[in-house]
């Protein structure tokens, strides 16, 4: 067995642990955050501040009966939750948490993440189709059109960043932004393109798209609970539902990671590269940034009502795609000039 393969297996194991812990405790964060936003304490009873709630919930989910509705295609029905979880896990392989904390550096890391994100969209379709439920079916159709609509601006914006940094490798993209927060891609002032006013807006676009890609409020049309009951996972119980749930939170982490890497300088310290503690704490900076983004995710979810499917598509096709396309052109032009 080659060393690289072993490396990847260990990394996947660590990624599973990381994703599992993250998913579990992000649920806690979400519930606690929701509580605090809503003038109530959130989970309180299990452990201090309800910190034991996630494991207890996990045990509950695992011990529940897995119900399979009559007349469904069992194989499709069972494979959907796995499909939801698997791409998110694999994507972690290529995400650089720090200079050397990365499972496997791939030169086309960005491409790989997008490839697997598309697979995640398919899991919703399979789940909705396999459930033999009208609500689930409608939800999966919605989810797919949403994924398609939002992958385009997401990709275009990412290409812009790739053009600026000149690499598809995530580590390279971060290294391009090292040396203080003024070097991050979020600012209009750029090393390679001079001055591009649209960069902060691009950041917003990628942020909105990652909210939409992860099916979170206000774009949670797939599981719009007041319209489609629970959407694609209406018929799932026990760990089937649990996997969807974990997959959702894993996707959130991926989305936050991607935003951080592309625009917020990844693990780079905001105050330049001082080589002493705590500024050299690279993973710390990375985690801080992604959790800040997740905090905003939670904040948004507990503030806004849901959009409709046409509102969502309008936003994508009328605003996000034109602006990101324009930014792509502008950046290409600026790259030629400078």
């Amino acid at each position, binding site marked *: 067995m080659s060393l690289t393969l072993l490396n990847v297996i260990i990394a996947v194991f660590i990624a599973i642990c990381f994703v599992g812990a993250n998913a579990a405790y992000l649920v806690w964060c979400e519930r606690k*955050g929701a*509580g*605090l*936003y*809503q*003038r*109530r*304490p959130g989970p*309180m009873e299990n452990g201090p501040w309800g910190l034991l709630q996630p494991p207890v919930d996990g045990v509950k989910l695992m011990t529940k009966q897995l119900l399979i509705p009559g007349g469904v295609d069992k194989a499709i029905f069972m494979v959907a939750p796995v499909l939801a979880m698997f791409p998110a896990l694999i994507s972690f392989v290529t995400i650089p948490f720090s200079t050397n904390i990365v499972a496997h550096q791939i030169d086309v890391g960005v491409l790989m993440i997008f490839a697997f994100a598309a697979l995640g969209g398919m899991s919703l379709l399979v789940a909705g189709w396999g459930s033999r439920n009208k609500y689930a079916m409608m939800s999966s159709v919605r989810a797919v059109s949403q994924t398609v609509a939002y992958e385009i601006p997401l990709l275009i914006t990412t290409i812009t960043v790739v053009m600026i940094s000149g690499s598809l490798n995530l580590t390279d993209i971060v290294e391009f932004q090292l040396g203080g927060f003024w070097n991050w891609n979020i600012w209009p002032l750029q090393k390679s393109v001079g001055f591009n006013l649209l960069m902060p807006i691009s950041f917003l676009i990628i942020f909105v798209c990652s909210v939409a890609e992860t099916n979170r409020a206000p774009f949670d049309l797939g599981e719009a609970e007041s319209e489609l009951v629970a959407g694609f996972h209406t018929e799932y119980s026990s760990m089937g539902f649990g996997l969807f749930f974990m997959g959702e939170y894993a996707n959130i982490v991926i989305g936050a990671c991607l935003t951080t890497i592309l625009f917020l300088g990844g693990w780079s310290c905001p105050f330049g590269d001082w080589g002493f503690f705590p500024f050299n704490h690279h993973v710390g900076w990375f985690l801080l940034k992604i959790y800040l983004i997740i905090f905003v995710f939670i*904040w*948004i979810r*507990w*503030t*806004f009502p849901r959009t409709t499917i046409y509102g969502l598509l309008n936003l994508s096709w*009328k*605003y996000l795609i034109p602006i990101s396309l324009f930014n792509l052109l502008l950046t290409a032009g600026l790259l030629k000039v400078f």
Partner: protein
Amino acid sequence: MGGYFSDLYSGAKSLLEGMWVTVKEFPQQPVTLSYPHESVKMYRRFRGHIELLADDEGKPNCIVCGMCERACPSGCISLAGEKPEGSKKKVLTKYILDFTKCSLCGSCVESCNFSALQFSNEYNLASTRKEDFIMDLLKRLEEQQK
């Protein structure tokens, strides 16, 4: 075209305003009460299920006139009394409240002219058995006297 950008601007502004409202609540103390650990004080007028009132000697005030039984819309009160020998008044021997039917309207308390009934302040009444709600108020009074 102008509408395009003003829409974008006003929309983004309204979203930020909303986010500012919720984030202001974030650091504040919750307004809820963690119920089993602490509980609210009931108001004096709180209408729990009814209970019998006793006079100074600890005997119920009730004279078994049956007004409450007749006033009750749901027929959840059943009472009985007997006249001991040598006494003018009837003495209450049984007062059963079927709380499963009670709608807490208070017609019984209002109909009573002898201040023999009042609302209790009890609200922790959850149970899984129906029998728990068929209450013997006379027994309850005796227990209270002890």
